[in-house]
């Protein structure tokens, strides 16, 4: 049995963590009531902890127990300022780590955060370092949420610097999710966020369940680590659940890799370094030959593909986890961020100059009364 630690940092991280807890109660509307009589049902021993500097963000949560919400006192929040965030983490490091330590030993930790906010993006790299120091053999995977491109230059800038720091730390890898996807869901922002959060929650729980179950064809934590270590050590997840109209397992696998079903828009055929395909479903739908053929086809483009098959009643479900050898989309983010920063800088200079020109008018003058 795996010991899993899930940390949600910052508002975005907190909410995804809450979605995970809600999923553990069965998800949907039933979870609202189920929390009064059920315990969250995780496939392994899962400990969750929501960390934030804003107490209001913590209060908003509904499926995370009060003791699993950790408020890091910082007078006025961090206001999307990563430097203030880093200072706040360092000031409260012992308290935060103490709180995690209380929850025992762990094999794997998922740290969920937005890359663009203040708190989550600044806490996470430091937190990962601390985790790696404290738990010798722990596997740490970051789940990082990219901002939608039009969210503003500070968010993009934060994302750019945060991603760089996340690449530098000694973690096993990053799973990316992109809020740019939100646009696909339409509707209001809140429900679009909830949809993304639910998607992430479902996939993470599916992943944990797969790593911790008796598989027909085994994938384990080691395999997962190998996949995450591939390429840029940046990856993402795709998911597809076949409906009764088309139960073909090869179609399901292909579908799980289509950009629409990925958390981060990537071209699997061209960009993937390593992959892991986890298939779940009733035995009669799982034709091993067909699966093998499909996986082999994938291997041709994606280097190495691990496959796991879990026999469980129901239509076939496929989770694909893969790392990228190249990330053109990321690059465009950096470019945009740099442009933004450049613009910001120029704007500042211009403003400064304008102001200086304005001041020049009164340069040699004294106040007269």
């Amino acid at each position, binding site marked *: 049995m795996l010991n899993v630690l899930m940390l949600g940092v910052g508002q975005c991280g907190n909410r995804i963590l809450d979605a995970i807890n809600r999923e553990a109660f069965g998800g949907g509307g039933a979870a609202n009531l189920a*929390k*009064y*009589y059920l315990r969250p049902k995780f496939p392994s021993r899962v400990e969750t902890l929501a960390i934030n500097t804003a107490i209001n963000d*913590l*209060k908003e*949560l*509904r*499926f*995370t*127990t*009060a*003791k699993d*919400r950790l408020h890091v006192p910082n007078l006025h929040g961090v206001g999307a300022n990563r430097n203030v965030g880093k200072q706040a983490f360092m000031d409260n490091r012992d308290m935060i780590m103490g709180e995690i330590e209380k929850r025992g030993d762990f094999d794997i930790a998922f740290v969920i955060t937005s890359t663009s906010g203040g708190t989550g993006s600044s806490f996470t790299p430091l937190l990962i370092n601390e985790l790696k120091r404290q738990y010798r053999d722990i596997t740490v995977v970051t789940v990082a949420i990219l901002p939608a491109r039009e969210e503003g230059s500070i968010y993009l800038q934060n994302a750019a610097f945060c991603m760089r720091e996340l690449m530098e730390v000694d973690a096993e890898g990053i799973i990316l999710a992109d809020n740019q996807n939100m646009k696909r869901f339409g509707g209001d922002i809140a429900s679009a966020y909830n949809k993304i959060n639910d998607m992430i929650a479902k996939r993470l729980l599916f992943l944990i369940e797969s790593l911790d179950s008796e598989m027909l064809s085994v994938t384990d934590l080691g395999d997962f680590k190998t996949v995450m270590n591939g390429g840029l050590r940046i990856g993402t997840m795709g998911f597809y659940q076949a409906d009764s109209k088309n139960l073909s397992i090869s179609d399901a696998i292909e579908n799980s890799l289509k950009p629409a079903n990925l958390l981060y828009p990537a071209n699997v055929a061209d960009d993937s370094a390593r992959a892991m395909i986890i298939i779940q479903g009733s035995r009669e739908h799982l034709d091993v030959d067909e699966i093998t053929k499909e996986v082999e086809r994938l291997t041709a483009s994606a280097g190495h593909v691990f496959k796991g098959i879990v026999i469980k009643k129901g239509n076939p479900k496929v989770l694909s986890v893969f790392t990228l050898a190249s990330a053109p989309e990321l690059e465009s983010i950096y470019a945009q961020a740099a442009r933004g920063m450049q613009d910001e800088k120029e704007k500042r200079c211009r403003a400064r100059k304008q102001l200086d020109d304005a001041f020049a008018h009164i340069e040699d003058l004294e106040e007269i009364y």
Partner: protein
Amino acid sequence: MRRLICLPCLVCLLFSILLVQAAHAKEDTDDSDEVAFKDFNLNIGDRIDLGDYQMELIEIQSVRDGLVVMRTSKVGGPLDEQRALLLDSPNNFDGGAENGGITITVADIFDEQSAKVRIEYQKSLGTARKHASERPAAALDKPELSVQKSFERNQMSVGDEVKVTLTVKNTGTGQALGIKAEDAPPLPEFSYVAGYPPKIKETLDSGQSDSAVYVMSAVKDGSIRVPAIIVSYTDAKKNAKSNSSEPFNILISPKSKADLAVKLAGLAPIALDGESMLNISISNSGTASATRIEADGTVMPSEGLQVTGLEKSFFEIMPGEEANYSVRLLGQKPGNYTIRLIVNYEGGDGSVIREGTAVVVVLGREYKYQYLLLIVPIAIVIAWMYRRYREYKY
């Protein structure tokens, strides 16, 4: 002190002497050839002497009719006559006063013993003088009946028989004759059983008494004034007399009856297969004894409650007393049972039926604290949910 009493006595004496002298003076006014008259108050046996004439009051024959018998005689003469004289009519002897004889008139009759007699005569005959009789006044012949009506008791109840005694007694000196006691009309509150109308002897000598008894039975309640009874009679001289008893009240209360009340003591519910005793009391709140009391009862529904000893009989229950007994109950089936006790008795006015009922509850199997089965889980659920709520409340 003694002188004070003596003084009026002396005055009285002087006064009477004066009166006597005045009377003499009147007498003295008559001439010798003239007719004189003189009034005498005579008792029977008294005699008036006038020369050779002697006039004696023999008898007052009838006060009512005004008849007086006098005997007139002349010493050494042929006149010796006993004659009844009518009141206020003059009677001449030897030709009457006009002709040298005498005339006697009865002026007044006082009573059976005395009368006022006027003598008229020629003064030459001398002076009329009264010669009082030496023998005492003859024994009176005067019957006097007392009458009394009495009830054996003056309080009774409807249906009671009562003896009425009528007593007539001659307390006078003479024989009473033609006695009639009129005890009528009959009282409507009674029916007359025997001896009515009462009969009393027609004649009663002095000192004798007679009584009559009759029996009647009260038929209506109320307070009744028993009217006076009048006894009428005559004395030997046919003088009619009457006397009456004193009227009085008697009270007839309503008929005395026995009145039984049947009471079955209230009973706590009996557990299933449990036993209990039911106390029954039959009390007599009437005024007469109840006799031949027989109690029996029924149980509805008849199955499920076993009752033993319900049937019982008593010989008598006196007024104000009660008889008690108890029956044994055994609950065999849960439910509500009605025990109806019927008591039959003689209450003094035929046989009477009285009833009493009691409801006995036989409980079902008792599951104590059954309600906890509901409350405890709810409380647990609420407590649990509250705990959960607290757990998720930040």
